[in-house]
């Protein structure tokens, strides 16, 4: 049996005449079966939060001046930062894979204003191509391909 759910879950607004046993959460929740993937998906929001804060720090260093920027680059070479980057990359890829390639297509209603939804089968290849293009673009920028 799962752990207890909120005692008011699925209860009527006025209690019935019969005493009831309290509701329990699904047996596999939170760490077994398909719920594991869902919980991991939710946990990945930590990477989005930390990376947003990191981005603000980068902007702040850029705005402060060259010394602050050099100091930040030195900090980023620390093994802890490198380890964080690897973990964050894994988190972002997992999040993108689950949302963009498994769940996103069916969130699109049959019509958005005057425009009909493209066939569901089109979404994954188009999103995949866009992802590859964006990755290639960023790789080129980091490589210094654009002067």
């Amino acid at each position: 049996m799962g752990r207890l759910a909120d005692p008011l879950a699925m209860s009527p607004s006025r209690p019935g005449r019969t005493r009831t046993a309290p509701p329990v959460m699904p047996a596999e929740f939170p760490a077994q079966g398909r719920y594991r993937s869902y919980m991991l998906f939710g946990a990945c929001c930590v990477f989005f939060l930390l990376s947003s804060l990191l981005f603000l720090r980068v902007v702040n260093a850029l705005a402060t001046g060259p010394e602050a920027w050099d100091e930040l680059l030195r900090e980023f070479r620390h093994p802890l930062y490198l380890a964080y980057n690897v973990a964050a990359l894994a988190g972002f890829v997992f999040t993108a894979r689950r949302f963009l390639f498994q769940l996103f297509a069916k969130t699109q209603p049959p019509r958005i204003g005057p425009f009909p939804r493209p066939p569901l089968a089109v979404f994954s290849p188009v999103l995949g191509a866009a992802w590859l293009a964006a990755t290639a673009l960023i790789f080129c920028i980091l490589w210094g391909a654009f002067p």
Partner: protein
Amino acid sequence: MSELQKKTFVITRFDPDKDEVPKTQTYEIPVRPDWKVLDALNFIKDEVDGTLSHRWSCRMAVCGSCGMTVNGEPKLTCKTALSDYGDTLEVGPLSNFPVIRDLVVELEGFMEKFKAVKPWILRAKEKAPEEGVYRQSPEELEAFKQFSMCINCMLCYAACPVVGNEPDYLGPAAIALGHRYNLDSRDEGDVERNQVFREEGGVYSCSYANECSEVCPKNVDPAAAINQAKFLALVDWAKSFVSSPPRRK
């Protein structure tokens, strides 16, 4: 009779007059290989223990009465073959619901959520009978048909992790059915329903576990309906910056 084999059923029991909390009771019974879980429960009820309480009706996955958890997963027991399981099965009431007795859960909370989304056709003004019927093209039907296949079995509620934690949440089936009427070309009640959808406990409570769609025995895909409704809320919000508030269709 050589086809009979023994299986053990660990069934959740709860008597509101005697028990503080649910307990389990074990039954070992002979079963036929073509039996469904519901057949075994009916055998126990008829031949072994007449005090066992469970709901069922049509025996063909249409009425939605016999939803229970089988080995922890919400299932329609009339559609769940015993041959898919090993020698021991655990059968319990649907998760996330208060239990009235044994495998029977309280439905009233579900019915209240259902009524809240007004799952019927709303029109500003009804046509007079002499004006004829409301016509609908196959394309217009296709837009909502999938969401109209729901049989109200409540398996989606039993699988949803949000339902158990947020008592105000409307839940998958109610939102899917409300969305079904919003997509119906004959309906004009989308503004009223969207108000309910966009309140506390509406579509924004869904965190897209997608479990409702995984367990749905009729492939309704309630997660798609909820997140389409969420997406349309976003579109309406964006539109509100450039135009007047949405009106009836």
